[in-house]
């Protein structure tokens, strides 16, 4: 009995591990391999399939003998790590075989149809159930699927624009007072998260204009919203000045990190889903005030 239990406890896991080690290690979320691409998919000639017509390491990676190289020793920064690279975005690489349009996410902010009505099912993208807009709604009634400060991160980055990160903090007493004053004066809301921190929805109105009544402070937002156009910019001569100001510091940062960074200035032409216009500084001044 002792020998049997010894065998079960020590030897079986060893055998199992030994079997697992022989498998090809794959990083998480790696594309499936050893499969034939569907017939309607056109794999470019530069992306060679294996002898059985399957997707293999060499199909996507241009690095020599990659299948024999341990994962931690593969140079992931090499230009040909992803064939035809380097790519600005990984999805650009995927688009060599996949049709980008098929994978495009719906713009969930675009809630209204041609008649100006919305499907309550779309509300359930963010809310557990669609709030009844005819009733007075409290924050608790909104029933978000995630805490409000995290709900945008399913589709957007935590830092989708510069200065996003340093805004996600708890405003001090003086600023909170200023925010309340602006809310009253301008008839808007500047909601904070459950911990009293600034979140995306503090500045951004997530609903398409018309979903919430304009008279409701939660529904008030910038007028020139066009969700199809989104935020648009126009070139501006200040870009030359701005770039020369940042040039030396960006060169230093690029040297330190090994990647090239650039910053520029373009003037905002149209803006969307903002509680107040940012292009004239009104949104900034709802919270920020200066003594001099």
């Amino acid at each position, binding site marked *: 009995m002792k020998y049997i239990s010894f065998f079960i406890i020590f030897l079986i896991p060893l055998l199992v591990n030994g079997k697992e080690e022989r498998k090809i290690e794959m990083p998480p979320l790696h594309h499936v391999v050893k499969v034939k691409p569907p017939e309607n998919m056109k794999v470019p000639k530069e992306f060679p399939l294996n002898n059985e017509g399957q997707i293999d390491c060499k199909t996507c990676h241009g690095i020599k003998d990659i299948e024999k190289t341990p994962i931690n020793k593969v140079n992931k920064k090499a230009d040909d790590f992803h064939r035809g690279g380097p790519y600005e*975005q990984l999805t650009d690489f995927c688009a060599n075989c996949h049709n980008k349009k098929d994978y495009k996410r719906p713009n969930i902010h675009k809630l209204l149809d041609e008649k100006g009505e919305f499907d309550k099912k779309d509300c359930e993208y963010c809310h557990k159930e669609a709030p009844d807009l005819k009733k007075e709604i409290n924050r608790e009634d909104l029933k978000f699927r995630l805490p409000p400060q995290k709900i945008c991160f399913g589709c957007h980055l935590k*830092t989708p624009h510069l*200065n996003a990160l*340093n805004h996600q903090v708890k405003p001090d007493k003086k600023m909170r007072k200023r925010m309340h004053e602006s809310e009253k004066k301008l008839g808007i809301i500047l909601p904070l998260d459950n911990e009293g921190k600034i979140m995306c929805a503090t500045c951004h109105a997530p609903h398409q204009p018309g979903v919430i009544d304009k008279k409701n402070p939660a529904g008030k937002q910038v007028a020139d919203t066009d969700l199809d156009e989104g935020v648009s910019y126009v070139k501006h001569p200040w870009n030359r000045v701005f770039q020369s*100001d940042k040039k030396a510091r960006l060169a230093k*940062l690029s040297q330190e990190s090994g990647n090239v960074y650039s910053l520029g200035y373009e*003037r905002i032409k149209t803006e969307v889903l903002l509680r107040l216009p940012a292009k*004239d*500084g009104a949104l900034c001044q709802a919270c920020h005030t*200066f003594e001099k």
Partner: protein
Amino acid sequence: MSVLLKWFLWLLIFIAPPSFANDKTDFSLTVETEKTTSKKKKETWWEKRNKRTDLYYPHNTHMAVMEKEGDSCFLCHPFNANKITDLELLKKLNIIANEPLEAICHECHVIKLTAPWRCELCHSSPDTIWPNDHNFDYLTHHGEDARQDEGKCRQCHIDLSFCSDCHFRRDPVQRRVHMLGYRTTHGIEARINTVSCSRCHNAHYCSDCHREHR
């Protein structure tokens, strides 16, 4: 044995308090210092921005001008789209993006001169921008630098009156360079080294008087 132990414990209690008390004071001190250091650590550039004394930047004055020009806060504090996910790197990039330096300020205050151009308006302490070569004897030698690169002088001395106040001075009452009565003896030095006169005086300066006496 137990009696000995008791005595030892009593001794410990009587001897120990002063040292414990000291420890306590020391501890409270450390706590305080830690508090202050943690406060210092927590203070970000944003919180420190109003404490800067080397530079004066009146936001409200600039805002009024920007409104007029149709510009916004984004001129200096951009909210450009970002794809970087490395937060440490992004913090560094944010600081670069947010902090305007010489090129941005000088565009209006020095190059285009659409804004006031007196250095001391923004640089409250001249020490921070004082050039190293501007020592006590620089007045004598400034002409050499000016002839080589006048533009360099103009970076700070924007108003031409800074030069002309001396170079075209005709006020005989206030004498800046020459000692009193120099007018009587100036001819000797002028004959020895005419070039030294011409560092400051042009030909008209001489001929204006000498022509009259001919």
